[in-house]
């Protein structure tokens, strides 16, 4: 739900100018309305970020993004991404393999559970881990006894992020692999390949675009997650602030240019995400040419 965009496989159908199409002026009006709406609500905010970032000049900009707190925030964001994304990718692959290559009862229930993180508010996602791991939480006493800190420390941020971004890779792979079916794997088995060999040589190449797509979306969300991380992090400067949290602090302290400076970095990454996403869509469409027999 939140951020799930399945790879589009259909080709565009452009309207030819024929008798039954809308009159020209209607078309122009609709296009203008659409582009205007998008311009006002999407492009303008994006522009504002970059312009505001440099409002006070580039010195302030560079100071903002290279301050120790900023660097710490960037580092933490990257660490969380490097841990959370591969883990959720492995989960996505395992779940897709189980769901699409086998028959068993309870598949729909499993898929629904995998979808759950999309359906809940990020704040709640953070809350549940506070209930589990804070000093008043279920495992609180045990954690304290072993001097392990999860809430208000990096592990908590990682776990909360894991929950929020759990579905991304799975939700891309499942429909893709469902369409592909089991014939390739069966062929590989009859040719004498073991399970692992079949997976590496046949299944993985077949899923590569879906996997890449899911990983990109997962990474974007991981880096940008705010609500859940806000709950579990404790906002300790220099230690448990990810980039979004750091931006919040700067903004709340009225250091607007600094806030937008750091924000512009993340926005740049968001734009790159969009570009990469489009490239993958294009490549996936190309390679989805059917290899089965035609009629």
């Amino acid at each position: 739900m939140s951020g799930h965009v399945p790879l589009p496989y259909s080709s565009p159908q452009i309207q030819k100018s024929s008798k039954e199409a809308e009159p020209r002026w209607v078309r122009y009006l609709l296009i203008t309305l659409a582009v205007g709406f998008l311009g006002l609500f999407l492009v303008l905010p994006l522009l504002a970020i970059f312009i505001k970032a440099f409002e006070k000049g580039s010195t302030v900009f560079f100071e903002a993004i290279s301050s120790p707190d900023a660097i710490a925030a960037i580092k933490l964001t990257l660490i969380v991404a490097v841990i959370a994304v591969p883990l959720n990718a492995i989960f996505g692959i395992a779940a897709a393999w189980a769901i699409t290559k086998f028959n068993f009862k309870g598949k729909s229930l499993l898929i629904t559970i995998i979808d759950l993180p999309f359906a809940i508010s990020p704040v709640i996602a953070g809350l549940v881990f506070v209930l589990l791991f804070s000093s008043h939480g279920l495992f609180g006493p045990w954690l304290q006894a072993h001097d392990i800190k999860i809430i208000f420390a990096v592990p908590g941020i990682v776990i909360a992020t894991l929950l929020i971004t759990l579905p991304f890779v799975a939700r891309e792979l499942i429909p893709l692999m469902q369409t592909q079916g089991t014939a390739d794997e069966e062929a590989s088995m009859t040719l004498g390949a073991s399970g692992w060999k079949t997976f590496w040589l046949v299944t993985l190449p077949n899923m590569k675009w879906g996997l890449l797509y899911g990983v990109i979306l997962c990474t974007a969300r991981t880096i940008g997650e705010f609500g859940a991380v806000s709950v579990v992090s404790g906002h300790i400067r220099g230690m448990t602030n990810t980039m979004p949290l750091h931006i919040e602090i700067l903004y709340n302290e009225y250091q607007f240019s600094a806030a937008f400076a750091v924000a512009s970095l993340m926005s740049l990454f968001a734009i790159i995400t969009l570009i990469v996403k489009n490239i993958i869509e294009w490549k996936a469409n190309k390679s989805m040419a059917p290899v089965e027999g035609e009629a």
Partner: protein
Amino acid sequence: MSIQINNISKSFGSFQALEHINLDIQTGELVALLGPSGSGKTSLLRIIAGLEEASQGVILFGDEDITLLSAKERKVGFVFQHYALFRHMTVFDNIAYGLKVRPRKNRPSKGEIKEKVNELLKLVKLEAFANRYPSHLSGGQRQRVALARALAVEPKVLLLDEPFGALDAKVRKDLRRWLRRLHDDYQITSIFVTHDQEEALDVADRIVVMNEGKIEQIGTPEEVYEQPNSPFVYHFLGNVNLFKGRLHNGKLQHGEFEVDAPEFAETINTEAVGYARPHDISIKREYRQDYATAKVNYIHQIGAVVQVELIRKDTGDYLEAELTKEYFRSLDLKTGEEVYVKPKQLKVFIPEDYSI
């Protein structure tokens, strides 16, 4: 490698896909599993391959009981209906796949693999396509690659699932003839599944006609075509004309005429149906006492034979006759004319014994 299928059954919940299938296949035979969709033929093939498990029964390859072995361990060659070529590998890599995935100790050297693959490329006449990807091949070419890939691991048994189903008619004919020649050269025990009776009759050593999870008849193409043992087999293997009548003391009485049915000499006054192939319908211009009157409804020239559709004057039934071109010319039939018809021979079945 001979194959013995003993009492194989398969059910999905309450649906019985296969029921007590018993079948013996000799080494080097080319057998067709022929039947309509839902007959269980593909299930049977996949069970033999190890891609599905039977609910009951035993399968032997030679003397060995392989029922519990996985597909990987059975070492069968399987050609899928939609080829299942690995789209990210070239033709060469596809064919080499079975050899490359062998465990280290059994794996041939790179040079040996190259030799074997090239040999197979020559066999399927695709040497120029070694570095192409499957998406750049035609359907017929992909099928040949799938076959070469299956043969590369030198299986003792070759299984093909509607191998030509997805191809154009002309390509289909060429490929099945080529498959027959290949089989004659290599003599691998082969089983292929098809719903196309022409294909089965053209290619197979023996045909296993299946319907609703059971075997209807096993025999050579001539046997199942000329001596079908049930109405279903008769219907499925070619066009058919029906003559309903009464069986009495070895003769089928049908309206104006009477046909011998010696196998029912003991039968008294039973309802029965006689089946005749189009080429067994005799048409005459002159009146004969034991012939039925019919009107020529439609004439259809197809290559070297002429199909004539007739309507019986007495019953209003449609009949389909097939004449050679010369005989047709000698009769000089025209639409709307009245002629006299009688089946030269009938295969008689009693309906209560069968339910189609």
